[in-house]
């Protein structure tokens, strides 16, 4: 009997440790990503120093790698995407939570889920062969921004919806009881309560837009060294450069592309850390009240 219990306790402990190990895998992978890709990016920093971030001449043939224009392009396309996606997502989320009866709400959830389920390469294909050719946008920052906007609308919408739904019903009823219209109620009760979480949702969308690769690579135009405010100019973004140039890259060029990935990783991790913290705090606040 004693033996049996000993064996069982052993199996129990082993299972617990296996489960803890699987959970720890998340931290291990994140750590390994940073270490492995950073180590492979060192040759280009050896060559360029901080000039990698501060210059915009990108000429693999001359071993010159200045990524500033790509960093700009990543930010510019992501901002265009947000400018389109945020009002649409917010309108959609408010419609689903405050106006739509359940019979309409459910198909709308399906609609955003379907949109989220379309692979990014399919959006890219549509963007390059239909949107850029038949709508006069060409391959440009704007085309990339539009495609990215379509791709991040589902995530911003669904997160905003969750945040808005944590508004205490008492606050809403109180506003309505004081004679507020639906719009005044949204402005007085829903938005102030959800503001933090909505900012977080938008930041998560920003993170996705910056890291989205394939669709951007297909429609952005692959122009080198352009730092411009013109949305119709062809440009480039960090992930697009990596995807488009990898095939022909020699060792130092590959190292430069990996350095772009490191830059992208660090930026998106910071944005995601902040966004996740904001969203989680806002959700807890909602549950507490």
């Amino acid at each position, binding site marked *: 009997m004693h033996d049996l219990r000993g064996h069982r306790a052993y199996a129990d402990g082993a299972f617990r440790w296996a489960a803890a190990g699987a*959970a720890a895998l998340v931290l291990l992978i*994140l750590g390994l990503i940073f270490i492995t890709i950073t180590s492979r990016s060192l040759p280009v920093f050896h060559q360029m120093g901080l000039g990698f971030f501060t210059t915009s001449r990108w000429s693999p043939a001359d071993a010159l790698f200045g990524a500033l224009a790509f960093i700009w392009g990543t930010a510019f396309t992501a901002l265009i995407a947000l400018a389109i996606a945020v009002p649409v997502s917010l309108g959609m989320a408010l419609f689903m939570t405050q106006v739509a009866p359940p019979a309409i709400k459910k198909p709308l959830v399906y*609609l955003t889920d379907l949109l989220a389920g*379309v*692979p990014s390469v*399919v959006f890219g294909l549509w963007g390059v062969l239909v949107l850029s050719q038949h709508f006069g946008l060409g391959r440009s920052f704007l085309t990339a921004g539009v495609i990215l906007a379509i791709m991040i609308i589902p995530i911003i919408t669904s997160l905003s919806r969750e945040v808005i739904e944590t508004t205490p019903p008492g606050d809403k009823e109180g506003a309505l009881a004081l004679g507020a219209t639906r719009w005044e109620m949204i402005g007085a009760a829903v938005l102030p309560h959800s503001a933090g979480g909505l900012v977080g949702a938008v930041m998560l969308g920003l993170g996705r837009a910056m*890291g989205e*690769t394939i669709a951007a690579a297909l429609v952005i135009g692959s122009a080198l060294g352009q730092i411009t405010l013109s949305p119709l100019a062809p440009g480039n973004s960090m992930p697009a450069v990596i995807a488009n140039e990898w095939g022909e890259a020699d060792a130092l060029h590959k190292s430069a592309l990996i350095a772009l990935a490191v830059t992208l990783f660090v930026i998106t991790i910071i944005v995601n*850390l902040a966004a996740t913290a904001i969203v989680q705090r806002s959700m807890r606040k909602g549950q507490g009240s």
Partner: protein
Amino acid sequence: MTGLMIASVVLVALPLIAVVSAIFGRGVTVAFQNFPDFFIKEIPSVARRAGPGMGPAILGTLLVTGAATLIAVPLGVLGAVYLHEYGRGNRFSRLVRFMATVMTGVPSIVMGLFIYVLWTLHFGYSAFGGSLALACLMLPVVIGATEQMLKLVPHHLREASYALGTSKSRTILTVVLPAALPGIVSGSLLAVARAAGETAPLLFAVGAATEYNPHLFEEANTALSIQIFGNATSSFVAAQDRAWGAALTLVLLTFVITLVARIFTARIARRR
């Protein structure tokens, strides 16, 4: 104001309708001409040559995604079991839960380069390298979905099992996980559907073969997404046609997976 909201709904629906109708409009004739040629023939090695063939890419997508599922789902479920059944509320599990959410935001191309450095650089192109990259992308999604489902398992089930003298690990394996199974299956399938459409993580690990390669660990392989990406910017109409056909195939594939997931979700809803 309500008008503005309805406008936003239209703005969401419009691109979806446009994309889907383009895929069907251009893809159906390509994919279903001389059925089933498109789904079984090999890919023409010269891009400008007209004619079917996405067979190797379909096999590659199934191979890469299938192996990724076999890696990510058991590990993700196990990790979620720790977070919810063992470490609830402790600092380590709070950290893991937080970082798992952050990990879902790691750009897929970064994951691809990570696996390139870790695996492809040493072992060369193979379907398995792509599986590793997809598994890394799926892991936090499976953890999150499974934990949500474990939360729904009523506590009295666990207590009844303990009262019978069952150990904690046995309780989890024979009571808790079976009770949560439909939800775990549906959450995992949604992760699989997303992974099947990924391109960026496969570019550096899988290669772009044009012939069938049934081997998981050897030689360059290909996938539908890689073929779409490669053919989309081609100036040859024949290649563009194949891209539309491959896009239709990929969308149908992910649609079927999502549909199966929905059926499982409906089953949980009915049970409760």
